[in-house]
């Protein structure tokens, strides 16, 4: 009897937990390694010490007290840039997606695919072009030129339509048009249908895309390096790259500590957000 219960449980739940735990280990292990290294006296990512010989908090201290390393400014900059750019990115993407999903016009599919394909151009030399372009922008409108957060955010918005729009559009396609029609009967305009009906129902995918965009911007240091030269304006990724990394000598302790501090609020945010992702709609819940 017990075994029967157990096998049943295993078939329904147990295997899930097994797989789940395996991947928990795989996911967490390197993260754990970073955390312990942030407390290690001679932090070195190439050694085999998960638990370091001697503990110290000096790496964290170096981030707080040093006026030459305005780490908390970096944190604020990062969250600000990634948050604003992520939000705007998703906003613009949702607008475009709505057009492709709901408005009938010729060449919808081709247009959307083109937008997606255009983004696939390797950005190798794009950075040079953007650098030159923003020199010129900086002459004319210094508020959005090189060395400003605004300019950087604008470049991140270049990727707003394209993939994001395709995904959101795909999701919107699962929302039955009967809802639209119901609203139209009540006299709603396109825009009202958008923000009263379609967009709220697309919340799961929008949230997911916000998270993904946020993370993408948060990890970027190449584009940020082109724009930001003042240490007070750095993002965390850029700051780590410039201050703590050298040709050979990387200060692993500080890198680890900086990563841990930066990652913690994001991890907390994930826990909050994943409720949004899963507690979502069901496409067929509202019938006619």
């Amino acid at each position, binding site marked *: 009897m017990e075994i029967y219960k157990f096998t049943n449980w295993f078939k329904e739940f147990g295997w899930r937990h097994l797989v789940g735990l395996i991947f928990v280990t795989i996911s967490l292990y390197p993260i754990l390694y970073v955390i312990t290294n942030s407390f290690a006296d001679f932090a070195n990512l190439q050694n085999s010490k998960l638990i370091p010989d001697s503990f110290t908090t000096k790496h964290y201290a170096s981030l707080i007290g040093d006026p*030459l390393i305005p780490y908390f400014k970096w944190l604020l900059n990062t969250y600000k840039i990634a948050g604003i750019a992520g939000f705007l990115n998703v906003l613009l993407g949702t607008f475009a997606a709505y057009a492709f999903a709901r408005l009938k016009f010729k060449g919808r599919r081709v247009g959307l695919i083109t937008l997606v394909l255009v983004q696939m151009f390797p950005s190798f030399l794009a950075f040079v072009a953007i650098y030159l372009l923003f020199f010129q922008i*900086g002459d004319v409108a210094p508020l959005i030129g090189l060395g400003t957060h605004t300019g950087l955010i604008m470049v991140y918005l270049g990727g707003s339509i394209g993939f994001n729009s395709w995904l959101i559009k795909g999701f919107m396609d699962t929302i039955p048009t009967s809802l639209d029609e119901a609203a139209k009967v009540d006299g709603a305009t396109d825009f009202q249908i958008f923000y009263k009906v379609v967009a709220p129902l697309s919340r799961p995918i929008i949230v997911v895309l916000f998270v993904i965009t946020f993370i993408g911007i948060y990890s970027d240091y190449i584009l940020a390096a082109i724009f930001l030269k003042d240490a007070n304006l750095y993002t965390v990724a850029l700051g780590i790259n410039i201050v703590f990394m050298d040709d050979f000598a990387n200060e692993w302790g500080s890198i680890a500590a900086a990563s841990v501090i930066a990652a913690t609020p994001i991890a907390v945010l994930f826990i909050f957000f994943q409720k949004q992702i899963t507690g979502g709609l069901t496409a067929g819940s509202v019938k006619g």
Partner: protein
Amino acid sequence: MSEYTYINEREYMKSNKLRFIVFLLMFSMIAIACGGDATEETSEAPETTEAPQETLAAPATTAPTPEKLVIWAEEKIAIALEPLVGAYESAAGVDIEVVIYDFGAIKNDVLTAGPAGEGPDLFVGPHDMVGEIVANGVVAPLDLGSIASDIFDVGITAFSYGGDVYGFPYATEAIAMYYNADLVDGVPSTWEEVKAACDAAGTELCVGAPGGGGGGDAYHNHPFFASDGGYIFKFDGGFDPNDVGLDNAGAIASAEYLDSLVKNGTVASTDYGASMTAFQEGRSLFWMTGPWARNDAAAVNYGVGLIPTFNGNPATPFVGVRGMFVSAFSENKVLAQSFILDFFSTVDVQAAMYAQDPRLPATKSLFAVVEAQDPIAAQFAASASNGIPMPNIPEMGNVWGPVGDAMLIIRDQNYGTNEDTGVTVNSAADAMKLAAQQVRDAIAGG
């Protein structure tokens, strides 16, 4: 029905036209208002700094816009410079803006920004980009005058190209040999004695030298092929890209000697990370790398000595030199030159820079001060004095890949025939010959 719609359409069109006209009116009103400002702005927009005409026999009472210098430097230098430039700014009446540029990116940034008119007046960078920035016309020559006698030869060589000097060298660095002071008293002068010391100490690895273990590194491996007559490009007033010495007798002899050292376990097959770990954990007796690693080496009680000799010749490491350049696109070269010659090169400023970012000074006067305080630095300097600067010609870019790969074969003992290219490398000599051929082909073919 249709008449009704037709009439409606006409009215619709009319109201549309009406809207359009209203809109145009609004728009043109605003445009004119702002357009007025625009024309005023246009005349101001292109800035020409006119030299203020001084009234005779009296200093200027109203300060015209002061001259401005923009300096691009990597972070530690910029941070060291910031408090110091204040003194110069007040003494000279100029505005100095120090902008932080990532050291690794500065070459590309200067090459892009300078011609676009957005470059700096002065910039700090490594010496190996000299050839490239000269060939692109981005840097102006700098006549150091009497200051040149205070600079070590290696610094002048590093900044020389085509007969002219192109910057002020202020720091050098080269690798030497760290040793674990708890287990050995110093670095022996021959490799045989090194092996004996390792056997006596019983460490797992003997010499942890980067440039093996899958991580090709021509920089760290340089002494292994260049100390006994081998060279990459012949230096004769300038580096000659047509004279590649990777496969001459001296280079091959040294490479084969390295091969024997690897075979008998003296030189371990480690990349940078592994060599650092090994030294930190006491698993290797020696660590062959540069002064940037002092903080990491401090995990054990360490000392620094010279790299052992090759066939009686002192080891020849690569020397990297950092210096300050004057941009060819600077609008005020005299001021830029003055900043270097009159201020930056003085011992006080150099000493302040050293305090922020300790690197071996390239100036003899500062070096004497540092040497007294820091015997470890003296060891690195001694090692550098036997070294040669990395060739600063643009063709050097072709060298890192092939040479690093060739040394990797020897260090990792990866001999054999490659299945994809069919090329056979069975000895150190083969590896060096292959590297030489690849470098020559790359320079010729581009």
